[in-house]
């Protein structure tokens, strides 16, 4: 009783925006309840022509690359050892962990037989990209969860698990990067089977590679956007110097993306490009507004150093990615005449999932040391048993675990 009262009092103190998000999450939960009671056919606008709709296109195919910040940044920071980026890592991990958990929710909602989701672990079909992706998502969510445990343990002062987690840190970062590479690209492999269905502006054998590269730059863009917003609205530290570093990496990645895309388009694609004006328009918007404009923006120092412009460029890049994933998984699929517009239930669920992501992020940031974490005071070197560094630096290591 008192606990409930405490919680209610706590919630009463929240900002209006958070309360609004809670309402959205509640509506989303209600909508998913409706979906489970009445079934997919009644509550969604899916049909035999459009077996996949908003939930696959957004909650899975788009949300996964948007959650890619964790693995990219982890790899850049730890493997290339650009230590100064460290303060951005934890928010990225939290975003990734939340993103993937919600991807799983979205996937579960979309299954016709959600109670059988464990079948993927029992009946293996390694020829299926879906099998590969679901395995990776399970593995990766576990990895992100372990990475996320660090701030939780710090919060509650559990020292022993912290030491274990610290030892696991590097293997986890490497595993995260390897697993992500696989499932980010396999999402592209999904659509390789749609040989005569996906329009040739998007269908080419390099689709998996393109999905992977675009996941990298969109993951980084999300970090930029997120850090800019948390600085503005959550009163967190201004990380612009670090974001500048990211903004310097991004155009390189986009550059590679453009080269691969051009090569795939001109040398590997088959079939006509200009047979459908609608497709051409979608493609033009995606590549011009979502790839080239941010590319040239990020190339300019003025944009990289300006908080607002940098966030706008990142936003455009994300817009391009979202449109690209929708084009590949929905609009680009050639269908005869029928149109698909998501139903109210589908929309509410997706909105609820997005709201949940933001809400949980803010709440976690509120109660756990996500931003207050000062990596300068923590020793991040791998415990080295061969050269006995640890012994000499005993005090040092301890400082790390208690920080």
């Amino acid at each position, binding site marked *: 009783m008192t606990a409930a009262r405490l919680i209610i009092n706590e919630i009463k103190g929240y900002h209006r925006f958070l309360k609004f998000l809670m309402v959205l999450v509640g509506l989303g939960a209600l909508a998913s309840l409706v979906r489970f009671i009445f079934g997919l056919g009644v509550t969604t606008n899916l049909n035999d022509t459009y077996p996949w709709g908003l939930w696959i296109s957004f909650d899975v195919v788009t949300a996964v690359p948007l959650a890619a910040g964790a693995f990219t940044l982890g790899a850049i920071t730890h493997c290339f050892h650009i230590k100064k980026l460290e303060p951005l890592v934890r928010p990225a991990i939290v975003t990734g962990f939340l993103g993937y958990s919600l991807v799983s929710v979205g996937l579960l909602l979309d299954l016709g037989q959600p109670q059988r989701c464990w079948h993927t672990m029992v009946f293996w*079909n390694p020829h299926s990209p879906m099998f590969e992706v679901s395995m990776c998502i399970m593995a990766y969510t576990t990895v992100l969860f372990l990475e996320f445990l660090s701030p939780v343990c710090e919060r509650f002062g559990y020292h022993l698990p912290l030491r274990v987690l610290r030892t696991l840190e590097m293997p986890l970062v490497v595993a995260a990067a390897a697993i992500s590479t696989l499932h980010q690209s396999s999402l592209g492999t999904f659509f390789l089977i749609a040989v005569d269905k996906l329009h040739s502006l998007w269908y080419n054998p390099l689709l998996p590679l393109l999905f992977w590269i675009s996941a990298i730059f969109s993951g980084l863009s999300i970090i930029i956007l997120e850090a800019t917003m948390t600085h503005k609205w959550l009163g967190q530290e201004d990380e612009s110097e670090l974001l500048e570093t990211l903004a310097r990496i991004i155009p390189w990645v986009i550059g590679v993306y453009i080269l691969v895309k051009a090569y795939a388009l001109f040398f590997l694609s088959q079939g006509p490009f200009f047979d459908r004006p609608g497709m051409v328009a979608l493609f033009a918007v995606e590549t011009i507004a979502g790839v080239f404009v941010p590319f040239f923006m990020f190339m300019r120092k003025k944009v990289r150093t300006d908080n607002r412009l940098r966030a706008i460029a990142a936003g455009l890049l994300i817009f391009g990615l979202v449109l690209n994933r929708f084009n590949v998984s929905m609009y680009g699929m050639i269908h005869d005449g029928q149109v698909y517009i998501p139903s109210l239930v589908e929309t509410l669920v997706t909105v609820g999932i997005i709201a949940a992501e933001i809400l949980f992020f803010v709440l976690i940031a509120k109660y756990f040391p996500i931003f207050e974490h000062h990596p300068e005071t923590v020793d991040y070197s791998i415990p080295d048993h061969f050269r006995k560094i640890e012994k000499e630096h005993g005090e040092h290591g301890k400082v790390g675990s208690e920080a």
Partner: protein
Amino acid sequence: MNSDLKEFNSAAAFLIDMTKCTGCRGCQVACKQWNQLKGEKTRFFNGEGYQNPPSMSEYTFTRIKFRDYQKNGQNEFAFYKEMCMHCNEPACASVCPVGAFKKTKEGPVVYDAKRCIGCRFCMVACPFGVPKYEWSKAFPLVRKCTGCYSRIREGLKPACATACPSAITYGPRAEMLKEAERRIAARPERYLKKIYGKEEAGGTSVIYLTALPFDELGFKQVTKRSLPSYTWQALRLVPGIFLTVGGSLSLLSWFTHRKERLKKEEEQRQASSHKAKEENQ
């Protein structure tokens, strides 16, 4: 792959000669009866042609498509029997994460409803748009033509092939192909010089003969390559990529951390020697 091909060719296949089809729709009815499928409420002219029901569905595994066309200024009908093609290397089976679809050695591609998790990837993958979903149910499953697997295992012919008075022949694929070629050669003026299903999607266990251009009839333009190979060319790289990325990142971080550590050690040594010097003085 080649030994498999032999197996496909000895397995049973449908030879459907659309020039001999009268449009009686006996096959459609026989299919409904054998599979105990509900009738659908239909309306005239609510699809693209005269056919009913308007499309295959959870209740309709096969159906005769009607097409209007003009020949020498005369209005004529054409028919096309739509059903699962029972591909030699089925896309549906390759993408299903839980392996619910299987190509049997007898020929039909069958579906194990007990495994299916309802992801509907099979529907996205099938180049012929065959698998349909039970949109009417709260916990839906996939439905499609089973090639009457339960019948042919008992030595019977599929229901539609049994019911058809003229157009469907059922037997080993190699023989059906030979028969199709024989018919084309014997009456070249009657047939289009093409056997649909011979190479489509890497070959299917349902092959068609017709007098009309296939696309005009509503046959889908389908790649000749087997579909699973399209995804497999990427998926087979998975273990290699995993090891490469994991390995190179591990190496990289080992190097960078080693550099860092050496630097620190160096600093330490300098500091301590400095201290020692100071103490000595």
